[in-house]
Protein backbone atom coordinates (compact mmCIF):
# COMPACT_ATOMS: atom_id res chain seq x y z
CA UNK A 1 0.00 0.00 0.00
CA UNK A 2 1.15 3.55 -0.64
CA UNK A 3 3.71 5.13 1.64
CA UNK A 4 1.65 8.27 2.07
CA UNK A 5 -1.45 6.44 3.21
CA UNK A 6 0.49 4.51 5.86
CA UNK A 7 1.86 7.72 7.31
CA UNK A 8 -1.72 8.67 8.32
CA UNK A 9 -3.84 7.03 11.05
CA UNK A 10 -6.35 5.81 8.44
CA UNK A 11 -5.03 2.31 7.55
CA UNK A 12 -4.03 1.46 11.13
CA UNK A 13 -7.42 2.41 12.57
CA UNK A 14 -9.33 0.86 9.68
CA UNK A 15 -7.50 -2.45 9.92
CA UNK A 16 -7.70 -2.66 13.73
CA UNK A 17 -11.39 -1.72 13.90
CA UNK A 18 -12.31 -4.16 11.11
CA UNK A 19 -10.35 -6.98 12.75
CA UNK A 20 -11.93 -6.22 16.12
CA UNK A 21 -15.47 -6.15 14.74
CA UNK A 22 -14.86 -9.49 13.09
CA UNK A 23 -13.38 -10.96 16.29
CA UNK A 24 -16.32 -9.66 18.31
CA UNK A 25 -18.75 -11.20 15.85
CA UNK A 26 -16.95 -14.53 16.27
CA UNK A 27 -17.12 -14.20 20.06
CA UNK A 28 -20.83 -13.30 19.98
CA UNK A 29 -21.56 -16.31 17.77
CA UNK A 30 -19.65 -18.44 20.25
CA UNK A 31 -21.96 -17.33 23.07
CA UNK A 32 -19.48 -14.74 24.47
CA UNK A 33 -17.07 -17.55 25.34
CA UNK A 34 -13.89 -16.21 27.04
CA UNK A 35 -11.69 -18.59 25.01
CA UNK A 36 -12.64 -16.57 21.93
CA UNK A 37 -10.72 -13.59 23.31
CA UNK A 38 -11.18 -10.64 20.93
CA UNK A 39 -7.70 -9.17 21.65
CA UNK A 40 -5.94 -12.40 20.65
CA UNK A 41 -8.23 -13.03 17.66
CA UNK A 42 -8.01 -9.52 16.24
CA UNK A 43 -4.25 -9.28 16.83
CA UNK A 44 -3.80 -12.54 14.90
CA UNK A 45 -5.96 -11.16 12.07
CA UNK A 46 -4.02 -7.90 11.92
CA UNK A 47 -0.70 -9.80 11.88
CA UNK A 48 -1.93 -11.95 8.98
CA UNK A 49 -3.06 -8.91 6.97
CA UNK A 50 0.20 -7.05 7.65
CA UNK A 51 2.17 -10.02 6.37
CA UNK A 52 -0.04 -10.29 3.32
CA UNK A 53 0.43 -6.60 2.51
CA UNK A 54 4.12 -6.75 3.46
CA UNK A 55 3.76 -3.88 5.93
CA UNK A 56 6.18 -3.71 8.88
CA UNK A 57 4.98 -3.66 12.48
CA UNK A 58 6.56 -0.21 13.02
CA UNK A 59 4.47 1.20 10.17
CA UNK A 60 1.27 -0.25 11.56
CA UNK A 61 2.04 0.78 15.16
CA UNK A 62 2.66 4.35 14.06
CA UNK A 63 -0.62 4.45 12.17
CA UNK A 64 -2.65 2.90 15.03
CA UNK A 65 -0.97 4.95 17.76
CA UNK A 66 -4.19 6.76 18.71
CA UNK A 67 -5.76 3.53 20.02
CA UNK A 68 -2.76 2.80 22.23
CA UNK A 69 -2.84 6.34 23.55
CA UNK A 70 -6.54 6.05 24.43
CA UNK A 71 -5.57 3.45 27.06
CA UNK A 72 -4.61 6.40 29.30
CA UNK A 73 -8.10 7.99 29.40
CA UNK A 74 -9.68 4.50 29.51
CA UNK A 75 -7.70 3.68 32.67
CA UNK A 76 -8.90 6.94 34.24
CA UNK A 77 -12.45 5.96 33.21
CA UNK A 78 -12.23 2.98 35.59
CA UNK A 79 -12.66 5.61 38.34
CA UNK A 80 -16.40 5.70 37.58
CA UNK A 81 -17.21 2.05 38.42
CA UNK A 82 -14.60 2.17 41.19
CA UNK A 83 -16.28 5.19 42.86
CA UNK A 84 -19.51 3.16 43.08
CA UNK A 85 -17.64 0.54 45.15
CA UNK A 86 -15.89 3.02 47.47
CA UNK A 87 -18.38 2.76 50.36
CA UNK A 88 -17.75 -1.02 50.49
CA UNK A 89 -14.03 -0.72 49.99
CA UNK A 90 -12.90 0.37 53.44
CA UNK A 91 -13.99 -2.97 54.91
CA UNK A 92 -12.19 -4.79 52.11
CA UNK A 93 -8.91 -2.93 52.54
CA UNK A 94 -6.85 -5.53 54.38
CA UNK A 95 -8.16 -8.66 52.63
CA UNK A 96 -7.50 -7.03 49.25
CA UNK A 97 -4.02 -5.91 50.24
CA UNK A 98 -3.08 -9.37 51.55
CA UNK A 99 -4.51 -11.16 48.49
CA UNK A 100 -2.87 -8.84 45.93
CA UNK A 101 0.49 -9.13 47.72
CA UNK A 102 0.20 -12.93 47.74
CA UNK A 103 -0.70 -12.92 44.05
CA UNK A 104 2.15 -10.58 43.03
CA UNK A 105 4.60 -12.64 45.09
CA UNK A 106 3.43 -15.87 43.44
CA UNK A 107 3.61 -14.34 39.99
CA UNK A 108 7.24 -13.22 40.34
CA UNK A 109 8.52 -16.36 42.10
CA UNK A 110 6.71 -18.75 39.75
CA UNK A 111 7.94 -16.82 36.69
CA UNK A 112 11.57 -16.90 37.83
CA UNK A 113 11.55 -20.54 38.95
CA UNK A 114 9.51 -21.96 36.05
CA UNK A 115 11.62 -20.07 33.51
CA UNK A 116 14.87 -21.29 35.07
CA UNK A 117 13.72 -24.91 35.34
CA UNK A 118 12.79 -24.93 31.67
CA UNK A 119 16.15 -23.53 30.63
CA UNK A 120 15.49 -19.83 29.93
CA UNK A 121 18.41 -17.43 29.55
CA UNK A 122 19.04 -15.06 32.47
CA UNK A 123 17.86 -12.13 30.31
CA UNK A 124 14.57 -13.91 29.62
CA UNK A 125 14.16 -14.76 33.33
CA UNK A 126 14.59 -11.10 34.27
CA UNK A 127 12.28 -9.97 31.49
CA UNK A 128 9.57 -12.40 32.64
CA UNK A 129 9.71 -11.48 36.34
CA UNK A 130 7.52 -8.33 36.11
CA UNK A 131 5.02 -9.86 33.64
CA UNK A 132 1.96 -9.39 35.86
CA UNK A 133 2.48 -5.63 36.25
CA UNK A 134 0.68 -3.28 33.86
CA UNK A 135 2.89 -2.40 30.84
CA UNK A 136 4.24 1.05 31.86
CA UNK A 137 5.17 -0.24 35.32
CA UNK A 138 6.69 -3.46 33.94
CA UNK A 139 8.86 -1.49 31.50
CA UNK A 140 10.13 0.66 34.37
CA UNK A 141 10.97 -2.47 36.41
CA UNK A 142 12.69 -4.11 33.42
CA UNK A 143 14.94 -1.09 32.98
CA UNK A 144 15.86 -1.16 36.65
CA UNK A 145 16.78 -4.87 36.84
CA UNK A 146 18.68 -5.03 33.55
CA UNK A 147 16.05 -6.91 31.54
CA UNK A 148 14.99 -6.18 27.95
CA UNK A 149 12.14 -3.61 28.31
CA UNK A 150 10.60 -4.24 24.87
CA UNK A 151 10.63 -7.98 25.39
CA UNK A 152 9.04 -7.43 28.80
CA UNK A 153 6.28 -5.35 27.18
CA UNK A 154 5.51 -8.19 24.75
CA UNK A 155 5.49 -10.75 27.59
CA UNK A 156 3.19 -8.53 29.68
CA UNK A 157 0.71 -8.33 26.81
CA UNK A 158 0.94 -12.08 26.20
CA UNK A 159 0.33 -12.90 29.87
CA UNK A 160 -2.61 -10.47 29.90
CA UNK A 161 -4.12 -12.28 26.95
CA UNK A 162 -3.56 -15.65 28.66
CA UNK A 163 -5.18 -14.36 31.86
CA UNK A 164 -8.16 -12.85 30.03
CA UNK A 165 -8.65 -16.00 27.94
CA UNK A 166 -8.22 -18.77 30.53
CA UNK A 167 -8.82 -16.82 33.77
CA UNK A 168 -12.64 -16.96 33.70
CA UNK A 169 -12.51 -20.77 33.26
CA UNK A 170 -10.03 -21.12 36.13
CA UNK A 171 -12.20 -18.95 38.41
CA UNK A 172 -15.27 -21.02 37.47
CA UNK A 173 -13.28 -24.15 38.28
CA UNK A 174 -12.45 -22.73 41.71
CA UNK A 175 -16.16 -22.03 42.21
CA UNK A 176 -15.64 -18.29 42.60
CA UNK A 177 -18.81 -16.35 41.82
CA UNK A 178 -18.11 -13.22 43.89
CA UNK A 179 -17.39 -10.37 41.42
CA UNK A 180 -15.02 -8.80 43.97
CA UNK A 181 -12.85 -11.93 44.09
CA UNK A 182 -12.99 -12.44 40.31
CA UNK A 183 -12.02 -8.81 39.72
CA UNK A 184 -9.17 -8.69 42.22
CA UNK A 185 -7.69 -11.98 40.99
CA UNK A 186 -7.94 -10.93 37.33
CA UNK A 187 -6.41 -7.47 37.85
CA UNK A 188 -3.54 -8.90 39.92
CA UNK A 189 -2.50 -11.54 37.39
CA UNK A 190 -3.73 -10.12 34.06
CA UNK A 191 -3.66 -6.29 34.54
CA UNK A 192 -5.33 -4.13 31.85
CA UNK A 193 -6.25 -6.80 29.32
CA UNK A 194 -7.96 -8.87 32.02
CA UNK A 195 -9.69 -5.76 33.36
CA UNK A 196 -10.89 -4.75 29.89
CA UNK A 197 -12.35 -8.19 29.22
CA UNK A 198 -14.40 -8.12 32.44
CA UNK A 199 -16.30 -4.87 31.84
CA UNK A 200 -18.83 -6.20 29.36
CA UNK A 201 -20.09 -8.96 31.66
CA UNK A 202 -19.54 -7.26 35.03
CA UNK A 203 -18.64 -3.57 35.46
CA UNK A 204 -18.38 -4.25 39.19
CA UNK A 205 -15.70 -6.91 38.71
CA UNK A 206 -13.80 -4.66 36.32
CA UNK A 207 -13.75 -1.88 38.93
CA UNK A 208 -12.08 -4.23 41.43
CA UNK A 209 -9.79 -5.48 38.67
CA UNK A 210 -8.65 -1.93 37.88
CA UNK A 211 -7.94 -1.32 41.54
CA UNK A 212 -5.97 -4.58 41.82
CA UNK A 213 -4.04 -3.71 38.65
CA UNK A 214 -2.75 -0.51 40.28
CA UNK A 215 -1.96 -2.21 43.60
CA UNK A 216 -0.28 -5.23 42.06
CA UNK A 217 1.80 -3.01 39.78
CA UNK A 218 3.01 -1.05 42.77
CA UNK A 219 3.78 -4.16 44.84
CA UNK A 220 5.49 -5.87 41.89
CA UNK A 221 7.72 -2.81 41.41
CA UNK A 222 8.79 -3.09 45.05
CA UNK A 223 9.22 -6.89 45.05
CA UNK A 224 10.97 -7.71 41.75
CA UNK A 225 14.44 -6.21 42.45
CA UNK A 226 14.45 -7.79 45.90
CA UNK A 227 13.21 -11.25 44.84
CA UNK A 228 15.59 -11.38 41.86
CA UNK A 229 18.47 -10.74 44.23
CA UNK A 230 17.16 -13.32 46.68
CA UNK A 231 16.64 -15.98 43.99
CA UNK A 232 19.83 -14.98 42.18
CA UNK A 233 21.98 -17.10 44.49
CA UNK A 234 20.62 -20.30 42.93
CA UNK A 235 21.66 -19.58 39.36
Amino acid at each position, binding site marked *: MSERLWSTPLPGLLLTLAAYELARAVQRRGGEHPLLNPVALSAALV*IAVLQLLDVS*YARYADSARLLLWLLGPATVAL*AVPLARELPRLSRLAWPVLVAVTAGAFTSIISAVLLARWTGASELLVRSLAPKSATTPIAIGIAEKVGAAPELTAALVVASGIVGATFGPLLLDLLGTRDPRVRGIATGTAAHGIGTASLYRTSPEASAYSGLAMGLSGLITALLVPWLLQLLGAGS
Partner: protein
Amino acid sequence: MPLGLLVLLLGLLAGELASQLLRLPLPGGVVGMALLAGLLGATRRRWASLEDASAALLRHMPLLFVPAGVGVVQFASSLRAAWLPVLCTLLLGTLLSMAVTALTLRACLALQARAGPKGPA
Protein backbone atom coordinates in the same frame (compact mmCIF):
# COMPACT_ATOMS: atom_id res chain seq x y z
CA MET B 1 -20.28 13.22 26.59
CA PRO B 2 -17.69 15.85 25.47
CA LEU B 3 -17.79 17.22 29.02
CA GLY B 4 -17.23 13.71 30.38
CA LEU B 5 -14.31 13.18 28.04
CA LEU B 6 -12.88 16.50 29.19
CA VAL B 7 -13.09 15.32 32.81
CA LEU B 8 -11.27 12.08 31.90
CA LEU B 9 -8.53 14.00 30.08
CA LEU B 10 -8.15 16.37 33.05
CA GLY B 11 -7.94 13.32 35.32
CA LEU B 12 -5.20 11.89 33.09
CA LEU B 13 -3.35 15.22 33.11
CA ALA B 14 -3.54 15.42 36.91
CA GLY B 15 -2.37 11.79 37.16
CA GLU B 16 0.57 12.35 34.78
CA LEU B 17 1.63 15.49 36.64
CA ALA B 18 1.33 13.87 40.08
CA SER B 19 3.19 10.77 38.88
CA GLN B 20 6.07 12.86 37.50
CA LEU B 21 6.30 15.45 40.26
CA LEU B 22 6.10 12.93 43.11
CA ARG B 23 8.21 10.38 41.18
CA LEU B 24 5.58 7.70 41.81
CA PRO B 25 6.30 4.21 40.40
CA LEU B 26 2.78 4.25 38.90
CA PRO B 27 1.68 5.33 35.40
CA GLY B 28 -0.33 8.54 35.02
CA GLY B 29 -3.50 6.69 34.06
CA VAL B 30 -3.54 4.64 37.29
CA VAL B 31 -2.85 7.74 39.43
CA GLY B 32 -5.59 9.60 37.51
CA MET B 33 -8.01 6.74 38.18
CA ALA B 34 -7.29 6.90 41.93
CA LEU B 35 -7.59 10.71 42.02
CA LEU B 36 -10.87 10.79 40.07
CA ALA B 37 -12.35 7.90 42.10
CA GLY B 38 -11.48 9.80 45.30
CA LEU B 39 -13.05 12.98 43.95
CA LEU B 40 -16.23 11.20 42.82
CA GLY B 41 -16.47 9.40 46.15
CA ALA B 42 -16.03 12.62 48.13
CA THR B 43 -18.60 14.62 46.14
CA ARG B 44 -21.04 11.70 45.88
CA ARG B 45 -22.24 13.05 42.58
CA ARG B 46 -23.10 11.28 39.39
CA TRP B 47 -22.47 13.13 36.17
CA ALA B 48 -24.40 11.58 33.28
CA SER B 49 -21.87 12.93 30.81
CA LEU B 50 -18.93 11.37 32.65
CA GLU B 51 -20.76 8.05 33.02
CA ASP B 52 -21.44 8.00 29.26
CA ALA B 53 -17.85 8.81 28.30
CA SER B 54 -16.47 6.28 30.78
CA ALA B 55 -18.82 3.49 29.69
CA ALA B 56 -18.05 4.15 26.02
CA LEU B 57 -14.30 3.82 26.58
CA LEU B 58 -14.52 0.84 28.94
CA ARG B 59 -16.90 -1.16 26.76
CA HIS B 60 -14.34 -1.08 23.97
CA MET B 61 -11.19 -1.20 26.06
CA PRO B 62 -10.09 -4.60 24.61
CA LEU B 63 -9.92 -2.88 21.20
CA LEU B 64 -7.30 -0.50 22.56
CA PHE B 65 -5.00 -3.43 23.42
CA VAL B 66 -5.00 -4.87 19.88
CA PRO B 67 -1.97 -2.86 18.62
CA ALA B 68 -0.04 -4.03 21.70
CA GLY B 69 -1.05 -7.61 20.93
CA VAL B 70 0.21 -7.20 17.37
CA GLY B 71 3.48 -5.91 18.87
CA VAL B 72 4.18 -9.38 20.25
CA VAL B 73 5.07 -10.54 16.69
CA GLN B 74 8.19 -8.41 16.78
CA PHE B 75 9.57 -10.92 19.23
CA ALA B 76 8.18 -13.98 17.47
CA SER B 77 11.61 -15.41 16.67
CA SER B 78 13.11 -14.98 20.15
CA LEU B 79 9.89 -16.27 21.74
CA ARG B 80 9.82 -19.26 19.41
CA ALA B 81 13.43 -20.07 20.26
CA ALA B 82 12.55 -20.16 23.97
CA TRP B 83 9.01 -21.47 23.55
CA LEU B 84 9.11 -23.90 26.49
CA PRO B 85 10.01 -21.41 29.26
CA VAL B 86 7.77 -18.75 27.70
CA LEU B 87 4.76 -21.06 27.44
CA CYS B 88 5.24 -22.55 30.93
CA THR B 89 5.68 -19.19 32.61
CA LEU B 90 2.88 -17.41 30.78
CA LEU B 91 0.36 -20.20 31.18
CA LEU B 92 1.18 -21.79 34.53
CA GLY B 93 2.66 -18.71 36.23
CA THR B 94 -0.21 -16.38 35.30
CA LEU B 95 -2.94 -18.84 36.24
CA LEU B 96 -1.17 -19.85 39.47
CA SER B 97 -0.94 -16.21 40.50
CA MET B 98 -4.63 -15.71 39.72
CA ALA B 99 -5.63 -18.79 41.72
CA VAL B 100 -3.51 -17.77 44.73
CA THR B 101 -5.01 -14.26 44.71
CA ALA B 102 -8.59 -15.59 44.50
CA LEU B 103 -8.12 -18.23 47.21
CA THR B 104 -6.30 -15.82 49.56
CA LEU B 105 -8.99 -13.18 49.18
CA ARG B 106 -11.73 -15.75 49.74
CA ALA B 107 -10.00 -17.00 52.89
CA CYS B 108 -9.51 -13.45 54.22
CA LEU B 109 -13.16 -12.55 53.53
CA ALA B 110 -14.31 -15.72 55.31
CA LEU B 111 -12.07 -14.88 58.26
CA GLN B 112 -13.48 -11.37 58.37
CA ALA B 113 -17.06 -12.61 58.20
CA ARG B 114 -16.40 -14.99 61.10
CA ALA B 115 -14.95 -12.13 63.17
CA GLY B 116 -18.45 -10.63 62.99
CA PRO B 117 -19.91 -7.76 61.04
CA LYS B 118 -18.48 -5.21 63.45
CA GLY B 119 -15.06 -6.84 63.68
CA PRO B 120 -11.96 -4.75 63.06
CA ALA B 121 -11.71 -4.24 59.30
